[in-house]
């Protein structure tokens, strides 16, 4: 395999009984890329993402994540990826610092590393003054940015963001994407699912899942051209209308 591919999926399939949630998807994600993973609810995005992040075993197919096989090298994959869920997953009853310490701790980082990096991250987030405040006292936008910083704190090769901007106002969303660009510039590959089509425009490449299959995969510009659409919104609607599967 080549070193500039962070994800290589080959006919990756997941069945639950008779139901094929993910139907032989194949795609590649390059290092440092911001990869948009789109699809209507129930299209199979979450299942695909769970397989790639080691939360779920595929029924068939192959995949290499961060250079490791998802069947055999689950442990190494886990060390090299980060994950942020749509719920932000911070502990509201812990302080900002304690949250960082905890997540860095379960990745086995040294105290020295945690201490130095915590200060740097808090300064970047302008959260130094709030370091010892409980997370529940922070506004939603700050929680979201903190959650992202926590997800990449251990410096993974790849970070999965599962609808990271749900319920956040447009200004904060823009600031958040700024953080995503910075992470990508520092070499972290970003794999992001979203429902906001304007966000899809920010991605380097976008894949659109329909009924468990990837029906389109290209740069936003190219997709708009192929589907002769003026926006990603239109592209998405054209594809999603073909879906036969009911959304969950």
């Amino acid at each position: 395999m080549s070193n500039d591919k962070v994800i290589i999926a080959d006919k990756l399939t997941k069945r639950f009984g008779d139901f094929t949630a993910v139907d032989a998807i194949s795609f590649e994600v390059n290092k440092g890329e911001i990869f948009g993973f789109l699809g209507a609810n129930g299209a199979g995005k979450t299942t695909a993402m769970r397989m790639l992040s080691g939360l779920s075993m595929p029924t068939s197919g192959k995949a290499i994540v961060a250079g490791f096989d998802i069947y055999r090298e689950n442990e190494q994959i886990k060390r090299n990826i980060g994950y942020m869920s749509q719920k932000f997953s911070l502990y509201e009853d812990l302080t900002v610092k304690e949250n960082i310490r905890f997540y860095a701790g379960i990745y086995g980082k040294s105290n020295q590393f945690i201490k130095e990096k915590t200060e740097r991250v808090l300064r970047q987030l302008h959260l130094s003054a709030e370091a010892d405040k409980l997370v529940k006292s922070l506004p939603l936008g700050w929680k979201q940015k903190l959650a992202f910083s926590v997800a990449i704190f251990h410096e993974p090769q790849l970070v999965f963001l599962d609808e990271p901007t749900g319920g956040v106002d447009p200004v904060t969303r823009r600031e958040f994407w700024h953080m995503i660009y910075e992470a990508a510039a520092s070499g972290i590959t970003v794999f992001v699912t979203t429902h906001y089509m304007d966000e899809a425009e920010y991605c380097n490449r976008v894949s659109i899942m329909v009924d468990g299959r990837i029906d389109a995969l290209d740069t936003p510009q190219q997709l708009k051209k192929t589907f002769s659409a003026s926006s990603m919104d239109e592209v998405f609607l054209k594809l999603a209308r073909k879906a036969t599967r009911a959304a969950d």
Partner: protein
Amino acid sequence: MKQFLSFVKKEFHHIFRDLRTMFILLAMPVAQIIIFGFALTNEVKNSRIVVWDQSKDAATTSLINQIEASNYFELDREIYSANEIETSFKKGKVKLAVIFPPHFNEDLLHFNKAQVQLIADASDPNVANTLTNYASAIIMDYQDRITNERKLPYTITTEMRMLYNPELKGAYNFVPGVMAMVLLLVCTMMTAITIVREKEMGTMEVMLVSPMKPFRIVLAKAVPYLMLSAVNITSILLLSVYVLDVPINGSLVLLVAESLLFTLVSLSLGLLISSRAESQQTAMFISLVALFLPTVMLSGFMFPIENMPLPLRTVSNIVPAKWYYSIVRSVMIKGVGLHAVWKETLILAGMFVFFLGLAIKNFKIRLA
């Protein structure tokens, strides 16, 4: 190991920051033992009685004096007609009426047979039962004394000794029961709820993506509760010995070891529940209905298992608290060693392995 420690530390933060959790974990066991030890007791003291003495002779006076002299009864007043019995019961304070027919002493002396009637307010059957027993015992005692004076040719006297609990104190029964309840509550319910909370908040998912092994995660969640249980075991035992005067007759080491074993069973049950429940409410509901009720009803602590119908007796065998309760009573009150409770110990150990295995299997299925 470092992962594990940062996890345990975080778990203690959760516990110490939440006053309600702290209260349930540390104050409730103490409150329970005190409530059960002092308030819930079968002993009846200073019950008010009325006496209708139609004889007024030496024998009745002496008997009434004896009844009054006991701790159990206090003479409310004398009455002079049958109607007054019910009127005094209806006022609520009086629980027992003692009625001597006319010529009590004469009957006793001439026919060797006299009658005394006890009428109890059985709207509370347990109290009525206890009171009539106490009163009969005092009357029997009086009879014994006069028979001795007159030397009847054949008499059988029963002499009773209550071994292990000579004063028939309720606390001897409640302390082992409360220990079982508290450990179950702390370990099972709290562990289940705290794990399910992580599922609800989405933090569980993030941890499962981390290099931390699922089994380690649940283990790290259980450790703080194991430690708090050790604190609870200590405080309950201290309270029982120094406040409730319940002795520890057997080996303290064995008692603590058995308690830790029961804690492990409870923890594994908590893990099992958390692997199935999707919301905190479900977890709490399952813990209360499937565990707490059987523990109270079927462990032998409230109701004797020997008196239950066969199906219930059979069911009681799968209630872990039943075995633990029996162990604690044997070790703490009777003072026996491991040789007397090895069977129960083995059953608890088996339950621990079984529940833990099932819990781990369930977690794995979730991940597949």
